[in-house]
């Protein structure tokens, strides 16, 4: 069902944990739906110098969190803003169609953490003008017809 890459990130997730006094924290998802993703960012000079996550969710949610954190670590804010869920899924050698939303969650968690950062430090981040951290990003994608 899952690629070796997904399983590898699931079994050995990178960047698990919390950051004390993080510059930005974002949480998306809903325990009711079985998935919550929480991201912590440490930002210096517009650059993400550290990132950690905690995830309650399925294998692909955990693997997506792990991969997404790896992909933005050391990158600038605008580079992180450009990370799409498709890029995360691709970096994992693909996700099953019904699991694509787990990668959406990862993209949304990063945006939520950046949004928190922008509020905390009173900065504007291009692309977050219309961002609503309370939006339910959770549109489970049924690729199969019923």
């Amino acid at each position: 069902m899952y690629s070796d890459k997904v399983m590898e990130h699931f079994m050995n997730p990178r960047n698990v944990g919390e950051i004390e006094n993080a510059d930005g924290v974002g949480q998306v998802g809903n325990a009711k739906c079985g998935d919550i993703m929480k991201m912590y960012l440490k930002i210096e000079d517009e650059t993400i110098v550290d990132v950690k996550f905690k995830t309650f969710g399925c294998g692909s949610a955990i693997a997506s969190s792990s991969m997404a954190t790896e992909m933005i670590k050391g990158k600038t804010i605008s580079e992180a803003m450009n990370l799409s869920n498709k890029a995360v899924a691709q970096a994992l050698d693909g996700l099953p169609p019904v699991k694509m939303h787990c990668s959406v969650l990862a993209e949304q968690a990063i945006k939520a953490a950046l949004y928190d950062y922008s509020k905390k430090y009173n900065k504007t981040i291009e692309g977050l003008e219309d961002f609503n951290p309370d939006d339910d990003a959770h549109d489970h994608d049924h690729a199969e017809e019923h």
Partner: protein
Amino acid sequence: MIRQVYLDNAATTPVKKQVLDEMLPFFKEKYGNPSSIYRLGQETRNAIDEVREKVANVINAKPREIYFTAGGSEADNWAIKGIAFANKDKGNHIITSKIEHHGVLHTCEYLEKNGFEVTYLDVDENGIVNMEQLKDSITDKTILISIMFANNEIGTIQPIEEIGKIARDNKVYFHTDAVQAIGNINIDVEKLNIDLLSMSAHKLYGPKGVGALYIKQGVKIHPYMHGGAQERNRRAGTENIPGIIGFGKAIELAYETLDEHNERLTKLRDKLIRDIKENIEYVRLNGHPDKRLPGNVNFSFEFIEGESLLLSLDMLGICASSGSACTSGSLDPSHVLLAIGLPHEIAHGSLRLTLGDFNTEEDVDYVVESLIKVVDRLRQMSPLYENVKKK
């Protein structure tokens, strides 16, 4: 190689050697079509009629009341649609429960779209159907009560005799999905007043793709498969001979060793339950404490999600199942766990471990040991657990 521990015997079981051995001659040598009059055909006809007798004896029915099907789902579909369409002049109301297998539930939903009304009975926190609600739901339009014998997820065994009595007193047909019960429980359809009963071979060490529906003589029901005259004109299609033979051997073995099987599994089950409770905190046993299938264990592990639990166990060679919807990418977790009142987030973190005849005490020890590690690792990753620790 890592240890392999199969703990998903409620999903399906391996075929036992004695069962396969019995099936083998029917593929290449005894392949005659039972509808043929030559000896090669009569031979297979006699062979399946012997199985019919065996199955009938096990549940105290008559051989002519046993109809072979392609499995439990077909038996459920046939029983419910067959009764509904054949008795719609009498009424259009069906009563079932919220914790039925999808084979029953989705069939009832289909009927709802086609002019029938269905009452889905509540269950209590242990999964026992509400008897008062059952009695109150019966109207003069009620034609069928369909309540499963034992639940596939939480193992709860229903008060079937009581339900049978209510059905009889109200002159309503009573169907029970006994797919999980057969091979674990002594069943007497006469005593329990059962009119229709679904079985499946692959849950009791028989082959996949074969099962049976018991239909009490005199019950008014439509055929489900139209065509040839097989199964007394009620279920067309060339018979799955090797499958039926395997089913026969499997059910025979199961009932020859029933007491032994139940004693062994109950002991393993209770050890597994005890060891999990003693070694892992924030857990909840789902299902009835003792009115429960001998091999069924179902726990919720708070703060973690079922699929990641399953995947982690799989990496350690353990096969299990969960009530999480994440395994299928849908939103709602198991309807059974919701019906017994679990909140969504707890239902998502549930794990079903079902023991079978091939499991040992060492398997149980290995699973508990593995669970301790896996649950801890996943909780360390969980933002929900973080909050608990902080309190």
